[in-house]
């Protein structure tokens, strides 16, 4: 009874979700992106420090499609996107689901600056499609989605809001805690904000900056306190990538976590990936933003606890 009443009460947000997805797809099709679909069950993974996969008899459930998306770039596809489910064990909270919906798009022969432009245009287009305007209300605050949005380096943001330089001191634990507790809450809420140039130790798949290799060309997009998207200028050097994967696995081993075999095919075709940029945007959080939802459960039909 309660389950049905809860599902019935979500109709408005589920309609908004469907319209958001339609708008997102139209945005990319109009710009010459090909929508692709790739397997959810996989024999190997990209090693990640803090993403834990579901392991099934058939293989790993996909934690992110990037392992496949870069293969399209290597095969000569210049613009591809995908919308689909991703799986991450143990992630459950107000903004987290162990099974969530992710949008990823990739551009060959561009770098991460093109992704910031895409984000600005995408959110503006979706907001226009949904409401006919670019001003939205999120949890009591007005957000203006019209471009341009502020681009702030991670170093600037940390010096201003956390009082230390994350490029000087390599401390991932302190970095991640201060990012969520001090930096993100202090970002301007009137417009979305990009943080760019993350410390290289926080960006194992991103290209290092030529001018300062302590930083990597990684961006994150925040709006209304929500972490919406994460993208890079892709690291395409197979040797450097292999070495960084091995460092990641070494960290997992030290912490007593499962270590998985390296994705050899991925490393093999990486040499054929042209200079590219790719980004992942959480669809559930995008819908939260437009629906004014404070909990992710408000914008999905069924939560894990409903099953």
């Amino acid at each position, binding site marked *: 009874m309660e389950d049905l009443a809860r599902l019935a009460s979500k109709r408005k947000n589920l309609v908004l979700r469907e319209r958001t997805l339609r708008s997102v797809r139209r945005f990319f099709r109009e710009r010459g992106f090909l929508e692709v679909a790739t397997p959810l069950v996989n024999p190997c993974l990209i090693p990640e420090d*803090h993403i834990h996969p579901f392991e099934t008899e058939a293989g790993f459930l996909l934690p992110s499609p990037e392992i496949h998306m870069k293969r399209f770039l290597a095969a000569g596809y210049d613009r591809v996107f995908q919308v689909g489910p991703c799986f991450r064990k*143990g992630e459950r909270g107000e903004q987290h689901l162990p099974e969530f919906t992710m949008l990823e798009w990739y551009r060959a022969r561009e770098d991460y600056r093109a992704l910031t432009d895409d984000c600005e245009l995408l959110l503006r287009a979706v907001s226009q499609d949904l409401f006919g305007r670019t001003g939205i209300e999120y949890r009591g605050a007005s957000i203006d989605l019209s471009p341009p949005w502020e681009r702030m380096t991670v170093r600037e943001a940390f010096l201003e809001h956390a009082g230390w330089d994350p490029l000087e001191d390599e401390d991932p634990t302190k970095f991640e805690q201060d990012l969520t507790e001090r930096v993100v809450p202090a970002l301007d809420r009137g417009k979305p904000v990009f943080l760019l140039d993350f410390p290289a130790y926080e960006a194992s798949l991103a290209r290092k900056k030529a001018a300062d290799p302590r930083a990597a060309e990684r961006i994150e997009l925040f709006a209304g306190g929500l972490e919406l998207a994460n993208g890079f200028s892709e690291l395409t050097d197979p040797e450097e990538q292999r070495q960084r994967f091995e460092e990641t696995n070494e960290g997992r081993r030290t912490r007593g976590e499962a270590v998985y075999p390296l994705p050899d095919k991925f490393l093999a075709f990486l040499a054929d990936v042209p200079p590219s940029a790719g980004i992942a945007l959480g669809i559930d959080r995008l819908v939260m933003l437009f629906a004014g939802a404070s909990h992710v459960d408000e914008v999905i039909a069924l939560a894990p606890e409903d099953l």
Partner: protein
Amino acid sequence: MYEAADLRKGLKIQIEGEPYILTDFSFVKPGKGQALYKCKLKNLITGSQFDRTFRSGDRFEQADLDEQEMEFLYQEGTQYCFMNTSSYEQVHMEEEQVGDAKNYLTDNVKVSVSFFQAKPMAINLPTFVELKVVKAAPGVKGDTATGATKPVTMETGYEIQVPLFIEEGETLRLDTRTGQYVSRTKE
């Protein structure tokens, strides 16, 4: 032993020999970063509260508590009296220890009480309870879809927001985790 992933609101853990209950909990994780488990902890002995952030890899002992089924007898001032349903032994708890559970205590209701070193520490409620509405402003007909609400008073004195169609004398199902209205019970 509990792991960080087991943490949730209401869980009781032991830190340096003392029992704590998680009165609030949130999971925070930067996309590529480490998960943080932000907790509000209440010491079940002293009642003192504090915030603490845990990380994956942290381990916790289960609080060494003894659960007993008790019947709620009466309230006098700030004291709540319960009786063990098998030994008929009576114990008193302070309003502070009873906490939000007081919103759901009707005469003779049976609840589970956690004891630490033979002292009652906390009340464990079922997830859903049914209570009668004793006071409600008149309802507005027809308006069931907009999500508008009005305040009502339950038989325990607890005031909550409910849909406009709820009337005095009805029995409602409440979720004790959120303190909110769930549904009307079937007649």
